[in-house]
C-alpha cells in the first residue's frame, strides 16, 4: 500500500514537466537561416498579426543593385517559419514601420530605376496585396497618423527633405519641403545611407499634438524640426552637428514631452523624459541625458512606450559594443531606470524593432551574424514573467 502511495506521488510530480505549448509560445529565440553563402537578410520592423504570429518586414542583399531588396517573412506564434516573399528587384529600399490601417499592413519603398516612392500593402499572412505610386523619391521615414501615413522623403533633384501626409490609396493630402542646403557635401551622407555605403542615419517622422516633426536634414544639419506643414520654415529646430550629432530616436510622451535618444560624435545619450523647444532654435548637445558608453558609436536606438506591471515604461533598445541587444527601461513618469536586460551572446546581435505582444510579453527583432558572417533575422520572444522580472524597478 505504501509502495503504491509513493508510486502515485512520484507519478504526480514527474508528469508535471511535460511539453508545454504555452511556455513554447511565451518565450523563444529564433534565427531564420538560409544556406545560401552570399545571401543577406535583415529585419526592419515586426508586427504581431491577429493569428498570434508575426509579420516581419526586412531587406535583402541584391546582386544587381546597390539598394537593398524587400523581404517579407511570416512566422507563427511559436516562432516557426511559415512563409517568405522575396519581392521583385524592381522595388527596393524598404522602410519601416509596418503600419496597420483597416486590417492591412503598409510600408513604403521605391522603384529601383525611377526612384519613385511606392506604398505597398500586405496581408497578415505576408502576401502582397497592392502597390501604388506616391511620387516622392527616396523614402526615408514613415509613421502612422490615424488612417493616414506620414512620410519623410528626400528629393534628390531639389535637394530637399519632404514631409507628406499620404492616404492608404497613395494620395498626398499635404506636403512641405525643406532645403537641406546647397552643395554636394550635404547630400553625400544621405545618398550613402540609401546605397548602404555609409552610416545608417536616424531619419524620423511623427506627430506630437498638432505639430508634425521630422528628424532629417535641414539647413546643412541633421535636425529634429517641428512643422505645421504650412509655413515654409520649421517652427522649431533642435539642431545636430551636421551628421555627426543629433537625435537618434524620439517618441512623444504625454504633456508635450519626449522620450529621446541622441548621439554626438559617437557618444550616445538617453533622455527618458525630455522637454523640447518646439518653437525656436536649440541644440541637441544642450539636452544632456544619461551617457551610455556601452553602446556602439552613434548607435541605432528604438524606443517603445509600453506598460509593464501596471507601470508606464519607456523601453530603449540599442546595440552594445559587446554585440548584444541592450534593453533599458525607464519609468515614464519619473524618468528613473526600472531595469535592464541584454539579449544575445556568442554571435553578434543588433536590434531592429520591438513590440509588445498580446500575451503581455515582448518580441524583439534583430539582426545576427550566423557563424560571425551570415546576416540573418533573429527573434527574441520574452514572456510577461521575464519582462516583469527584468523591469520591476529597484
Amino acid at each position, binding site marked *: 500500500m505504501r509502495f503504491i502511495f509513493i508510486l502515485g506521488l512520484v*507519478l504526480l510530480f514527474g508528469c508535471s*514537466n511535460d511539453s*508545454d505549448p504555452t511556455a513554447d509560445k511565451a518565450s523563444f529565440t529564433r534565427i531564420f537561416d538560409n544556406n*545560401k553563402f552570399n545571401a543577406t537578410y535583415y529585419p526592419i520592423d515586426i508586427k504581431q498579426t491577429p493569428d498570434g504570429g508575426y509579420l516581419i518586414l526586412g531587406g535583402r542583399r541584391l546582386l544587381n543593385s546597390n539598394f537593398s531588396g524587400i523581404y517579407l517573412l511570416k512566422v507563427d506564434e511559436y516562432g516557426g*517559419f511559415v512563409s517568405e516573399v522575396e519581392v521583385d528587384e524592381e522595388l527596393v529600399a524598404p522602410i519601416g514601420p509596418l503600419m496597420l490601417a483597416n486590417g492591412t499592413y503598409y510600408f513604403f519603398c521605391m522603384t529601383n530605376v525611377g526612384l519613385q516612392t511606392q506604398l505597398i500593402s500586405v496581408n497578415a499572412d505576408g502576401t502582397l496585396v497592392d502597390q501604388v505610386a506616391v511620387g516622392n523619391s527616396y523614402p526615408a521615414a514613415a509613421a502612422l497618423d490615424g488612417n493616414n501615413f506620414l512620410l519623410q522623403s528626400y528629393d534628390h533633384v531639389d535637394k530637399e527633405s519632404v514631409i507628406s501626409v499620404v492616404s492608404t490609396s497613395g494620395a498626398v493630402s499635404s506636403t512641405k519641403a525643406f532645403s537641406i542646403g546647397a552643395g554636394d557635401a550635404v547630400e553625400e551622407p544621405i545618398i550613402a545611407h540609401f546605397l548602404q555605403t555609409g552610416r545608417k542615419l536616424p531619419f524620423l517622422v511623427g506627430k506630437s499634438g498638432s505639430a508634425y516633426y521630422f528628424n532629417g536634414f535641414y539647413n546643412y544639419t541633421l535636425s529634429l524640426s517641428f512643422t505645421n506643414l504650412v509655413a515654409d520654415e520649421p517652427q522649431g529646430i533642435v539642431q545636430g552637428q551636421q551628421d555627426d550629432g543629433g537625435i537618434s530616436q524620439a517618441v512623444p510622451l504625454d504633456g508635450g514631452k519626449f522620450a529621446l535618444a541622441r548621439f554626438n560624435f559617437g557618444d550616445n545619450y538617453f533622455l527618458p523624459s525630455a522637454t523640447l523647444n518646439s518653437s525656436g532654435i536649440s541644440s541637441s548637445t544642450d539636452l544632456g541625458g544619461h551617457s551610455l558608453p556601452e553602446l556602439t558609436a552613434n548607435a541605432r536606438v528604438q524606443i517603445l512606450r509600453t506598460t509593464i506591471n501596471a507601470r508606464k515604461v519607456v523601453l530603449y533598445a540599442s546595440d552594445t559594443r559587446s554585440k548584444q541587444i541592450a534593453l533599458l527601461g525607464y519609468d515614464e513618469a519619473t524618468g528613473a531606470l526600472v531595469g535592464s536586460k541584454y539579449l544575445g551572446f556568442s*554571435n553578434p546581435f543588433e536590434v531592429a524593432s520591438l513590440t509588445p505582444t498580446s500575451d503581455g510579453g515582448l518580441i524583439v527583432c534583430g539582426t545576427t551574424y550566423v*557563424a560571425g558572417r551570415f546576416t540573418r533575422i533573429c527573434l527574441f520572444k520574452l514572456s510577461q514573467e521575464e519582462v516583469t522580472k527584468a523591469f520591476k524597478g529597484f
Partner: protein
Amino acid sequence: MKFILSLALTVAISTTGFSQFKKKASNTLPKPKPSQQNKFLEKQWWLGFKAGTNFAQAKPIKSYTVMVPTKYAAGLNAKEYDSFSKTGSQATLEATFYYKGISFSVQPTYRHTRFTYFNQFRWYNTENSAETLELRYDQEQKIDYADFPLFIKYDILRDKLRPYVQVGIVYSMLINANKAVAISGTDYASGGTNQFANETLIVGAKDLYENYWGIAAGVGVDYNLGNVRLVLEGSYWKGMSNITNTKNRFGNDRLAGIGDVPDDLDLNNIIISAGVLFPMRFLSSNFKTLDR
C-alpha cells in the same frame, strides 16, 4: 564532489560496521536452536555501499531549435544523439529489508551522467563551390542527480551465491548541470581549405534541466563472503518524464546565441554497480548471520 560523497558514504558504512562490532562484543546471547535460527533468518536488514559506472541515452520527446531554415530541410540541421556511449559514475548507499526471499530496498544515489549530440550546418554557393562553409557543433551535457530509487528484489537462489532480479521506481533530483560546446568546421572560402576548431565553450546549464522520474529493472548477484555480502548488479533505468525545464529552455543566452536549445528529453541509463552490504541483525555472538 563525487569523491567527497563517496568518501563520506564509505566512512558512514565503516562506522556503522564498527559500531555493530562494539555492541556485539559485550553481548552474550545464548546460541539459538535450529528452528529459532530458521525463523531468525527469514528477515534481515542490510546496509551497504555500492559504486560503479553508468551509460546514458537521451531520447528526444520533441525537438526544438533556434536555427529555423527558410530554404532548406530542417532535417539537415537535426541533432544526432549518441546512445549509451559516454560513461558516468555513481555512488549508492543501500538499505535493504529482506523477508523470505523478497527484499525492499532504498538506494539513494549520487549520479554523474553524460550524453552528447551534434548537429551540422552548411552554407554554399551553387555558382561558386569555393564559397562554402561547414560547421559542426558537438555538445556534451554533464548532469549530476541525487537519485532516490525504491526497489523490490527477488532472490532466485538462496545459497552462498544469490542471483536476484529487481524492479523499482526512481525519482531523480537535479543537483548540477553544465554543457560544453565545441565548434569545428571547414572554411573553403578563405582562399584554401581551412579546417578549424574553436575553443570549447563551457557553460553552467542547471537552469535548463529539471527533476524527473523513471522506472528501473535489473539483475544482480550477491555473494556471501564471511559476514558481509558482495554485490554486483546491472540495471536499466528508463526515464518517464521530461528532464528539460520547459519554461527556461531559451534561458541561456550563450547557448541560444550559437543556435542551441535543449530538446524535450527522456533520459535512460544503464547502471552497473558493485559494492558490499553489511547485516544489521546477528544470529549469535560470533556475528554469524546467514545460512553460511
